[in-house]
């Protein structure tokens, strides 16, 4: 059904390991009749369902919660489900897998490094004193609000995939791991600062951040890992001097 708001877009997709071309990257183009309000994920689904069933990508919730459909769209890490094609403003939409991660097939990359980096910072509450008897460990509203902007991360990997320090060093912990570490270090109930910092004060840790801000530009949840990194650096220096 033709509509004046419809537009034929060219999807230029960076493919890998398909079409008899194992371990080889190549570009393939598809035409998609896109409607206003349609997401990049909708278009990829349309290609997969109607044009080329071999096109491989991850998706699950299609509402910006699961983080599965993180990919590089028009040169920036984004969630395909949260990116409306019309707002990109280009006739050709370039879609590539997340940068810096090992490719598996087409747009699907090996995301094993994401949980590995996450676990390195011990992303859980560490306590040493017993809780008040028969009570939860309580927090004031002010203490709780310190965690705003830290806990919302969905672990999609957009930030780390956008980070030149990660491209240069695949062992670099990367923005989301720092954000998560700070989420616990900033928590008034946490007593495991030393444990959280262990992996951070390392050559693959905090000091490899060069304040480039690509992570902040990329984050689909509009979080600010650089702010957390700056706070962590200050804490670390304070602990060393103090």
């Amino acid at each position, binding site marked *: 059904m033709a509509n004046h708001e419809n537009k034929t877009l060219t999807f230029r997709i960076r493919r890998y390991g398909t079409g008899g071309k194992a371990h080889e990257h190549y570009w393939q183009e598809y035409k998609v009749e896109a409607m206003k309000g349609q997401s990049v994920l909708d278009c990829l689904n349309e290609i997969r369902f109607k044009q080329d069933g071999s096109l491989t990508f991850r998706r699950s919730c299609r509402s910006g919660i699961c983080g599965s459909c993180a990919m590089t769209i028009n040169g920036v890490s984004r969630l395909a489900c949260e990116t409306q094609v019309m707002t990109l403003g280009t006739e050709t939409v370039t879609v590539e897998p997340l940068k810096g991660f090992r490719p598996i097939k087409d747009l699907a990359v090996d995301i094993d490094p994401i949980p590995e980096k996450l676990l390195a910072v011990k992303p859980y509450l560490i306590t040493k004193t017993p809780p008040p008897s028969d009570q939860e460990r309580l927090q004031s509203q002010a203490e709780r609000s310190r965690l705003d902007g830290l806990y919302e991360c969905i672990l999609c990997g957009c930030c780390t995939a956008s980070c030149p320090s990660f491209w240069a060093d695949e062992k670099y912990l990367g923005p989301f791991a720092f954000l998560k570490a700070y989420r616990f270090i900033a928590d008034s109930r946490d007593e495991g600062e030393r444990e959280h910092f262990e992996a951070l004060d390392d050559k693959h840790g905090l000091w490899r951040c*060069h304040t480039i801000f690509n992570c902040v530009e990329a984050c689909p949840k509009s979080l600010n890992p650089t702010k957390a990194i700056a706070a962590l650096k200050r804490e670390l220096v304070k602990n060393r001097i103090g």
Partner: protein
Amino acid sequence: MRALQRYRIHLGTAAWILHRLAGLALILYLLVHIWVIHHLIGGQQSFDKIMEFFNNPLAKALEIGLVGVILYHLWNGLRVTLIDMGVMVERQKALFAAAVVVWLVTWGVVAYAMLTKVGGLLSALAKIGGGGLS
């Protein structure tokens, strides 16, 4: 670094790349500087000779360029330091704009001072106009 080729260059990336290039340029300058200064070992004559070698408009222009490189590295370095201290982390682009303004103003002032001083670029250029490089 192949990924950099097809990732959008955001403002922060540009600031960082320029900062790195400025740093490399400063290392290069330092090597030249040490080489020039080492002529002091050969006495006054040797030093005067090397200083004479650099007494031309091209060297003067490079010198003004060097000031620009130093000042960029200085002001953007301060921007990064402020960010690490938690100042304006959420407004890094405005902070970069401020750093660029201060950079250009200070560069302009120093360049003006260099050009209007004895044997400046303008008079050197006038010399070329008058009778070639000599």
